[in-house]
């Protein structure tokens, strides 16, 4: 009884505990697509590297935020956000990875070890995804490589197609036919 009640203690926060995964039909990912309807790519979690867990998410019209906790890098060691636009003027462009096609990648180191803090931006048509690394003191910056394993992008168009097939309705926004209203 007490356990159930204690579990409810955290339930009323606006932060959600539902993961934004790259799985087909993931409800959170549909919500992400609705939050920034212009974004042609959607950030999502493919798998968790050892020591990383899902922290929470905030999905609202205009912006999406979710974060991961690490047993070594600390709580909210990585925060991922999706917005229509972002300011990457202080960042340096680097070559995106093989699975990051269709994006431009920018790196912005803010502080180096002992406390590693950095921003990474992925800019693409209709949206911008920011990875904010904020590691604990003495946590190795190499932990940021884990993130490449954990996160990926799903094309919005694929989700639009899924919705058409599943419910016969349009997921309004980029990649969809114009919606009424």
């Amino acid at each position, binding site marked *: 009884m007490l356990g159930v009640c204690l579990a409810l203690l955290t*339930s*009323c926060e606006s932060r*959600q505990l*539902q993961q934004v995964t790259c799985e087909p039909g993931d409800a959170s990912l549909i*919500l992400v697509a609705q939050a920034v309807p212009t974004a042609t790519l959607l950030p999502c979690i493919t798998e968790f590297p050892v020591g990383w867990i899902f922290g929470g998410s*905030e999905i609202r*019209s205009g912006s999406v935020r979710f974060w991961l906790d690490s047993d070594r890098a600390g709580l909210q060691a990585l925060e991922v956000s999706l917005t229509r636009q972002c300011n990457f003027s202080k960042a340096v462009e680097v070559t995106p990875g093989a699975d990051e096609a269709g994006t431009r990648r920018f790196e912005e180191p803010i502080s180096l070890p002992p406390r590693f803090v950095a921003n990474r931006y992925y800019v693409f048509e209709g949206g911008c995804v920011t990875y904010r690394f904020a590691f604990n003191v003495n946590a190795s910056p190499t932990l940021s490589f884990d993130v490449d394993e954990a996160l990926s992008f799903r094309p919005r168009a694929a989700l639009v197609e899924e919705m058409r097939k599943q419910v016969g309705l*349009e997921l*309004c926004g980029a990649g969809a036919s114009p919606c009424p209203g």
Partner: protein
Amino acid sequence: MTAYFLVVLIVVVVFDGFGDVFDRFNTERLLDVAALRTAWLTDVAEFVAALGNPWTIRILRWGTILALVVVKRWRHLFVLLGAILVLEIVTYQMTIALARPRPLGVEIIGSWEGFATPSRPVASFAGTLVGMLYSLVIPGRPRNIGKWIAGVAIVTLAVSRMYLAVDRPTDVVYAGIFGVAVVLVAFRWFAPNEAFPVAYRRGKSAHLDVGGRRGEAIVKAVREQLGLTVLDIKPVGLEGSGGSTPLRLRVAATESEPEQNLFAKLYAKNHVRADRWYKLGRTILYGALEDETPFQNVRRFVEYEDYTLRLLQDSGLPTAKPYGIVEITPEREYMIVTEFFKGAVEIGEAEVDERAIDGGLRLIRNMWDAGLAHRDIKPANLMVRDGEVLLIDVFFVQVRPSPWRQAVDLANMMLVLALRSDAKSVYEAALDYFTEDEIAEAFAATRGVASPTQLRTEMKRDDRDLLAEFRALAPEREPIRIQRWSLRRVGMTAWVVAVSLFALLLVISNWNVFS
């Protein structure tokens, strides 16, 4: 409650299995609404949608909480907080469990946050308005008008959110019903209007309103069950009574008796609950001093008082003659009817002469001899008529009480009598019925909870330290400890502390719900 859980269950099951069907139905409705979109109508919808804004709800809730604190309507306050907490937690958990995205197939033009079903802003707004209505607005015409206003406001918010396509019709309908139901059930269950009426006049929460339908029910029940015609009902002695609603009934003449006044005490479920809390509090503060088993229902409550009245009558003690029990609402409200002491004055306002002092002390002696204790000897429960002391309110009477309790009755009686006379006269008169050792034991036993609140208050008002005066007159005696420790007391205390801490943590952790 059953209906409310059924609604939750049905919606969860239905949405889980038939979400797509609902989506298509909803989209068709939203497209109908979206066809009406114009620039000015969109401005209006955005303005109205602000009713569901967290700041709007925050202001309404904090305003209500503040108002309830100002008018000291604590029960309503706690019911409101509890209901809102439950509403927010359940609504939130349902949005997560159902995981329904925002409407598909129509352009969303408003602001939103999180999953869509049920609509949290609509549920919060509806629950808040119902909470305000049931905690602040007087029942009857004002509340009925309030219900219409609240209904229009909720529907307006719902329509605006559909217009902006942030919610589906089913999201807002379900949220509206759910928000209203949770808070309404909480108030009907924990602060029913019959027992805790919202009123802006002075009075104790234990006192029930005896006008309107309840008044009619009392008249009808007394006629059918006691064969008496009630001509008038008037609350009396409310100041000295905290556990029931005392009434004076004027009844028409019968073949055997002339028109007369009768005394009645009306009990409802809240009195049983109050008794339960009172006994729990005593157990925690002092341990099991005596039988602290609570009554289970109102019927047993009045049955016990009727029994004690008849027992005292049989023992020849000067109490009111019982006329019987009247059932007003089965298992909810009962009334006990007794003789009304015509011409009697409460001892606190009467002249207490030698005869009255003797009468009061003899009364205690007779109770001791009959193996009884009154347990609530205080000015409000002692009447004086022609120098004779009469005993009323015998609900706490105990058969075969502990010597400690009998000793306390004696001390309390002596203190009541001394309040209107002096300690020396009362002490000397007491020696006619009790030994010095018995009196010494009585004052050694009398401390804290042993004396009723009213008596302690009267003693504080008095310039004299009557307790010290009596103790000085009686032989010296070590104070009798009233603390009783047991595993049950430790367990209950630990449980209450744990529940209180949990409630506090719950409120702190969910502070954003209230604000």
